[in-house]
């Protein structure tokens, strides 16, 4: 292969892509350890538990079974009886990785409560919170770079990372935000662009091996939909509220009937946004994890190799789904804001 015609950046990006693609083959090997070492005779491989463990949030970040394979994330608890307490989650595990009680707190199914039977306000840095910070840092690095490139290249052609992201930003602004919101769209461009890139980066980060399932967590998508709900209804003008409460152009008795339907419609829009993103990302992860689990259920090399090939293709589809779901969330938000702020016609 002739490498001298390619720039060093292209070579680095291509080698990273190749490594990530083929790492899906070796993910089977890394998961192989828990079967051989920790399984007592009689304890079969439970695919449901393995899949749920990778989908759900957790107080530790588990990469591989071994002394250095787990990151014990900090636990931050607040309760009326004990006040604010911060400690490492390694206190909840003994040497053999069994869960023990610590200092009056017990950890059951990733839920911390007091030994005496009270509830605590769990503000810990869990796996998803750490992934959210990683997502934020990635977005900051990328977009500060884009902004500095824009300042540097005023009037000239874009260069570097600006040349990747500026066409995407312009596309979202001109094809998604401006046609759907119409007049006064500039107010909403920052929120909608941040929303698109947060969901896109979060989806892609969730597909990397060993990563946390950030946007497949219903709490995260619920918060994004709630922010959309607040922004839409805060900026709703008189025409919008009139359409909901006192629909024009409809006979009087029907208006009373339409009122509860319209109110339900106001609530179901953010609910549909929540469920759509959560299901699309979580189900994608469940499909990939089920295919990995197939190799362990059948205890066969042939099934392992075959499923690895299928996993590569499904992972590529998942990358497409990641982009499409971010785009769909953004365009629906833009449409809802547009219907709330448009003038009467």
């Amino acid at each position, binding site marked *: 292969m002739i490498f001298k015609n390619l720039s060093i950046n292209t070579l680095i990006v291509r080698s990273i892509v190749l490594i990530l693609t083929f790492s899906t083959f070796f993910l089977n090997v890394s998961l192989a350890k828990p079967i051989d070492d920790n399984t007592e005779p009689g304890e079969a491989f439970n695919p*449901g538990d393995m*899949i*749920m463990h990778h989908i759900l949030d957790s107080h530790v970040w588990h990469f591989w079974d071994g002394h250095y394979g787990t990151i014990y994330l900090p636990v931050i608890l607040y309760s009326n009886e004990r006040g604010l307490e911060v400690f490492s989650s390694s206190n909840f595990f003994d040497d053999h990785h069994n869960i023990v009680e610590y200092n009056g707190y017990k950890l059951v199914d990733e839920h911390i409560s007091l030994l005496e039977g009270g509830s605590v306000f769990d503000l810990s840095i869990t796996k998803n919170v750490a992934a959210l910070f990683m997502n934020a840092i990635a977005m900051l690095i990328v977009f500060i770079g884009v902004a500095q490139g824009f300042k540097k290249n005023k009037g000239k052609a874009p260069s570097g990372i600006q040349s990747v992201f500026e066409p995407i930003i312009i596309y979202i602004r001109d094809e998604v935000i401006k046609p759907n919101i119409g007049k006064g769209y500039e107010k909403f461009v920052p929120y909608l662009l941040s929303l698109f890139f947060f969901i896109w980066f979060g989806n892609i980060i969730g597909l990397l091996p060993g990563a946390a399932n950030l946007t497949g967590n219903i709490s995260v998508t619920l918060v994004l939909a709630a922010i959309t709900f607040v922004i839409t209804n805060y900026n709703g003008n008189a025409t919008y509220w009139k359409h909901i409460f006192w629909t024009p152009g409809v006979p009087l008795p029907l208006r009373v009937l339409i009122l509860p339907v319209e109110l339900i419609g106001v609530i179901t829009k953010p609910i549909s946004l929540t*469920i*759509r993103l959560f*299901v*699309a990302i*979580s*189900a*994608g992860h*469940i499909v990939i994890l089920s295919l990995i689990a197939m190799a362990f259920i059948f205890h066969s090399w042939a099934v392992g190799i075959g499923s690895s090939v299928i996993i590569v293709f499904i992972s590529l589809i998942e990358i*497409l*789904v990641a982009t*499409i*779901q971010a*785009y*769909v969330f953004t365009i629906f938000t833009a449409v809802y804001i547009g219907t709330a702020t448009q003038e009467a016609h």
Partner: protein
Amino acid sequence: MLLSILLDVNLAIMGAGIGAGLVAIGAGIGIGKIGGSAMEAMARQPESAGKIQTAMLIIAALVEVIALFGIVLNFMISLKT
């Protein structure tokens, strides 16, 4: 006695399997119709093939999410012992 047969959890797991199959039929029909009309439209007017393809992918993602919703529910039912 009939009630104890009906309340058997194995029936729920079988129902989850049947449900997953029905969900797949729904997704197949929906995305098949989208793809079919997209093919037809692209054959009629080849210069708008790019726009049609983009719209087809987006709507296919929306239909697929409903199917995945059914898959996730059935999966969670099948985990109950």
